[in-house]
């Protein structure tokens, strides 16, 4: 866990530090769009939307963030480090045998990581269960899940999208980072798929912090929300 001193130092870090933090893992000065496709969504969530801090990671009332798309987690680790959940010193040795930071995050090892991911199509079904659990316990907190557009290929997501709509899980938000990476890409089909199952939908520029904050902060009574965050195509 982080020390108070580290947390204080972390609190001075901002969005402009994220690429430097990512460089500690990648060794690259510049990152292509694929490596940073989730970066702005993650930053806006932790900086402006989610009610969770390094001090409240076990508070039952905290907001939950589930990184379902566990691939390419450098941006996630950079944001967690910037926000003081984990020490910056951990970043350099990532994915080595003794590092708690793997190429897919492990909730048992990473402070602040709510789920272990990597195999696609698990985060959203888990989030449906957690949203039901929070609702059953009368807790007002919410669950936000990040999936990739290609991750929606996995049929398990279809099961979850249908049930969340049917059970009116208003405390559930899915953010789809859409870089058109699915092999059978059909433009503008993601939001309608969710809308068909009764979800509130929003499509925003995945690099526009104000638009992301507005869409991700909104909760609609009686309906789960999907925010499709469009970023540069992965080609």
């Amino acid at each position, binding site marked *: 866990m982080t020390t108070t001193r580290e947390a204080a130092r972390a609190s001075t870090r901002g969005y402009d530090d994220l690429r430097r933090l990512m460089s500690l893992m990648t060794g690259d000065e510049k990152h292509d769009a694929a490596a940073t496709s989730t970066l702005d969504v993650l930053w806006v969530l932790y900086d402006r939307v989610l009610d969770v801090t390094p001090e409240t990671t076990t508070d039952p009332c905290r907001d939950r963030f589930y990184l379902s798309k566990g691939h390419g987690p450098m941006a996630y680790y950079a944001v967690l480090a910037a926000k003081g959940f984990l020490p910056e010193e951990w970043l350099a040795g990532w994915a080595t045998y003794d590092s708690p930071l793997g190429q897919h995050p492990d909730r048992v090892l990473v402070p602040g990581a709510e789920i272990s991911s990597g195999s696609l199509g698990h985060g959203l079904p*888990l989030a449906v*269960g957690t949203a039901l*659990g929070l609702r*059953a316990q009368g807790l007002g907190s919410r669950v936000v899940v990040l999936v990739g557009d290609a991750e929606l290929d996995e049929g398990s997501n279809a099961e979850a999208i249908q049930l969340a709509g049917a059970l009116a899980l208003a405390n559930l938000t899915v953010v789809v980072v859409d870089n058109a990476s699915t092999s059978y890409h059909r433009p503008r089909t993601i939001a309608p798929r969710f809308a068909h199952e009764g979800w509130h939908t929003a499509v925003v520029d995945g690099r526009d912090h104000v638009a992301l904050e507005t869409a991700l902060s909104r909760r609609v009574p009686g309906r789960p929300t999907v925010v499709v965050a469009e970023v540069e195509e992965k080609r």
Partner: protein
Amino acid sequence: MRDPRETFAVTAARLVDEDLSVALVYAEISGQYFREVERRHPDRVVNVGIREQLLVNVGAGFALSGMRPVVHTFSSFLVERAFEQVKLGFGHQDVGGVLVGSGGSVDISRGGRTHQSPGDVALVDTLPGWTVHVPGHADEVERSVELAVAGDGRDYVRVVAQQNARAFPVAPGRFHVVRRGEGATVVAVGPMLDPVLAAVEGLDVTVLYANVVRPFDATTLRAVLASPEVVLVEPYLAGTSSRLVADALSDVPHRLLGLGIGTDERRRYGTPEQHLAAHGLDAAGLRRAVAGFLSPTRASA
């Protein structure tokens, strides 16, 4: 005698009534038993529809929120179809839960291979930390479900229709000594006890009874061992627990016979009894196998 599956359902409903932290998640199957408890507790009793991948991960998601999930459908869909969800949703997330599978190996004999799950325990056995309950009586079903829900670990409860005349206490990690003899030791798992007792009548063997098979009670096995010969009789894939017997007796030259359901696909319907007989798990088949094992020369003559 009570029906084991209905006993599970009644027990689960009672536990949901009694404990606000218990959630029951199911996928249509057994819904006929859950109507009333679902009406009383719609937030904690959830039918996910015909969606088994979702079923298991919704249970795990409940656990991540701090609740104790009971997750139920037929074993074939719970463990075999949704195996990765069992592996990642519970074990890899490091949360607890109670999986209750019904149907087992032969309950749905007329349904064919799609509804038969002889491989469930072997699959769960590839994962660390699961307690595996194989109750052989409705009273044991009730006790296993109560114990599992009261705990915080990962429990798989295998509920099948076949039962023994007598119920034993449920104590994970402890096998029961049913009778002592000077010869071989026969370990009967769950509903295999009554056919085993009929099969070994007149033979000078020890019979152990296991209604919780993981953890495997190596201590009792070693303590009662007379001659170094062991026969395992399991109501799922033959040999599922053989490696645990081998581990328990790694310093003892011994012989081992693992009986259970075979891996070959029979493509037969009919009754559970016919299927058990076809796999040699009725009293007559077990008698032949045990006698042959204990007198190899005579059997081959």
